[in-house]
């Protein structure tokens, strides 16, 4: 009963958060130097043409009036009209969500596929050669910038070996998947480095814990002790770490999408900023914010599923 109430009522708490985010993005976008009308029309536009564009997009209104319209639109599910693409922002974003969402999911999946076995090997062979190697690799992994890593992966797997496409997205599912492998791996390598370290620490603590001792004392083989008692307990803090990192990851897609020319929201954001397309930037930023909040909400629910001690 209590749990259902949480799932239904917790989103109400998001409202003030989203309200705050709307103010911040609205103001920050307008702090970028440059005039959207002039960028749209070019350097030799006539003053009357500039004024017409400004009036058309409401840019000549006082800033609080503009914000009021922004909020009014948001509450009606509208995000205004793009000055560059000349269409409504909402369908524009909708058309770009899929590649970004697919990229994030691929990255999370790949990073777990990398992190869990590596952490397990590392923790169970603590202090030995395999552990040392994994620790060094994951420390280096944290330090590698994604844009560089992406280029290296393209060089190796696409240009030299020719296994995977260089960039772009594709139309059919197999095409899309093959286009997602390298960008997904790029993000996953840095993310899994963080996760491996956290999981390893949790597993080492778990192997030395009283729970593990008690399981051994009732004759459980080491493999059972590890996978049935140590791993579930080590996963709990990692879920929260993952949730925190997904916020960072969503921001990171901006870079990766540019490197791999994925037509996602990150690319849209970059174009929006360069052309001072206020509506697009606001819209994308709001979408990212909502996504981050939802991911953390999801992580809370997963934590409860994993750990019966956590009360909502």
């Amino acid at each position, binding site marked *: 009963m209590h749990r259902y109430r949480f799932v239904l*009522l917790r989103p109400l708490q998001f409202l003030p958060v989203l309200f705050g985010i709307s103010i911040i993005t609205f103001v920050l976008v307008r702090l970028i130097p440059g005039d959207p009308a002039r960028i749209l029309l070019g350097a030799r536009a006539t003053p009357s043409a500039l004024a017409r564009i400004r009036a058309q997009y409401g840019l000549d209104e006082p800033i609080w009036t503009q914000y009021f319209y922004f909020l009014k639109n948001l509450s009606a599910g509208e995000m205004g009209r793009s000055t560059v693409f000349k269409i409504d922002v909402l369908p524009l974003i909708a058309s770009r969500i899929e590649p970004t969402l697919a990229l994030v999911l691929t990255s999370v999946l790949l990073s777990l596929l990398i992190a869990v076995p590596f952490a397990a090997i590392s923790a169970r062979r603590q202090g030995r050669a395999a552990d040392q190697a994994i620790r060094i690799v994951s420390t280096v992994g944290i330090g590698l910038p994604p844009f560089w890593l992406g280029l290296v992966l393209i060089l190796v797997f696409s240009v030299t070996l020719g296994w995977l496409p260089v960039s772009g997205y594709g139309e059919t599912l197999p095409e899309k998947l093959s286009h997602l492998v390298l960008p997904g791996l790029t993000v996953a390598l840095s993310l899994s480095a963080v996760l491996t370290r956290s999981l390893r620490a949790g597993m080492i603590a778990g192997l030395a814990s*009283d*729970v593990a*001792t*008690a399981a051994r004392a*009732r*004759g459980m083989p080491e493999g059972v002790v590890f996978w049935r008692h140590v791993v579930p307990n080590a996963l709990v803090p990692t879920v929260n770490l993952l949730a925190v990192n997904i916020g960072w990851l969503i921001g990171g897609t901006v870079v990766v999408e540019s490197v791999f020319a994925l037509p996602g929201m990150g690319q849209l954001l970059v174009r929006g900023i360069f052309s001072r397309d206020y509506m697009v930037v606001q819209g994308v930023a709001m979408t990212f914010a909502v996504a981050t909040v939802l991911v953390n909400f999801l992580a809370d629910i997963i934590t409860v599923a994993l750990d019966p001690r956590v009360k909502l």
Partner: protein
Amino acid sequence: MTAVLRIEDLEVRFRDGDESRLLIDRVSLELQRGEILGLVGESGSGKSLLCRAVMGLLPSRKLAITRGRVELDGETISGLPEAAMLGIRGRRIGMIFQNPTSHLDPVMRIGDQIAEGLRRHRGLGRAAAQAEAVDLLRQVGFTDPPRQARMYAHEFSGGMRQRAMIAIALACDPEILIADEPTTALDVTIQAQILRLLADLRRTRGLSIILITHDLGVVAQVCDRIAVMRNGSVVEQGEKRALLAHPQHPYAQALIASHPSLPQEDAVGEPLRPHEAPLVEIDDLEVSFPAGGGLFGRKRSTKALAGVSLRVGRGETVGIVGESGSGKSTLARALLGLQPVTAGHIAFDGAVLTLERARTLARLRREAAMVFQDPFNALNSRMTIGETLAEVLRVQGKVPAERIPTRIGELLDMVGLERDFAARRPRSMSGGQCQRAGIARALAVDPTLIVADECVAALDVTIQAQIVALFRRLVQDHGLTLIFIAHDLAIVRRLCERVVVMQHGRIVEDGASAEIFARPAHPYTAALIAAIPSIDPDRPLGGGEAGAISETGLQQEGLTT
């Protein structure tokens, strides 16, 4: 009788490079079939390590059996390969631990943890193992096993968790049960119930039990034979009565002499002196904690204190006793202004805390001090003892700066620590030494009142006796007022002239120690006293069955959902 387990000349060493230390020193022991063997000794004496060695579960790769052997039913099991040990652990030798909370898997249902062993060792299917698990829970005293098998460890009280651990250990019907301090973390009435359960299991299942404990009272009550360990070797072993009556080894003699349940000729028993105006006055105090109810939920609360009134005179030593959850620590914290109160009044030497908070707090901080339960964590590990004391002295400003080093020396003298302890950090000190330093820090305030919250609970019996003696001396020499909170009634009886008994946030009895221990008026007090395991084996363990205890026991043991 035949020996089911025989330990012969067993030696365990710690080896790291060239360093080698002897941890178990040529121990020989026998456990007869159906016998309960008490393994007694202080922390660090090697009793737990010995049992780990028997199980082949030495806690580090740097530890190894370097001599001797362990025989189970005539077959040598020490040095067996891991695969063979897997069939012995759990199946033939079960084990339960001191802290059930940390040994139960928090994210696995209790029933599944019992079923795990059944499925592995006895090859039962899922459904059969679950049914068996429910039956085991019933055997160890769960009231609604089908439902409780689906619950998690955190949903149970401490006593229920230990019962669950026992059910897990019994799952595969082992011949031997090793119980490592199974009742140390439990309240005295719950302890009585668990000990009775172990004795019953021995009778009904023919189980042989090794009971590790530091409490001679527990041993005297339930064991047949006793082995006393010190510094890794067994210094004395023998039949219970003979050993308790005529200990041969000086250490065994000291251990028995320091047991608090022994009536002492110098026990505090003088009648209450008439006191002038009370130092502490507490009227109708209520403290509630919010319980559950989130942002949108209805606010609920539990009452930790439900109308407590207490007067403590200058120079009095008052013991507050009661089981965990009875509100004794909350009372102490509220008294020192560390805990917001819901209703009622607290006055310290005429200043009313609830009315003039700032002024009273200022006085409390200068005239009252607290000693905490965990001596190690209550000290700042980065500071030397000298720095810790100097900090208090500087803040208090009662001692001029140039006198501070001298004063530190005096404080260390008062608590019986060498003066060179001023330069040491808690890490390099034993639990007893840390607690002395904690008391020195309280004395640095130059207080009129000291509140000690379970400050000897974590210490070995011989150290407990020393700390109690220290408090008695301090109270006599400095005219201190002492409020001493403990769940251990025997210690309170030795230290305090007056006892206040708390239950469910209320005071149920309050009077002179000698009077209350001789003629308890409230059934709860009587039950508490009866449940203290006496070192005299012929004074059987009370509690856990009839009368008041079944009522309080059930409430304590009851599920918290």
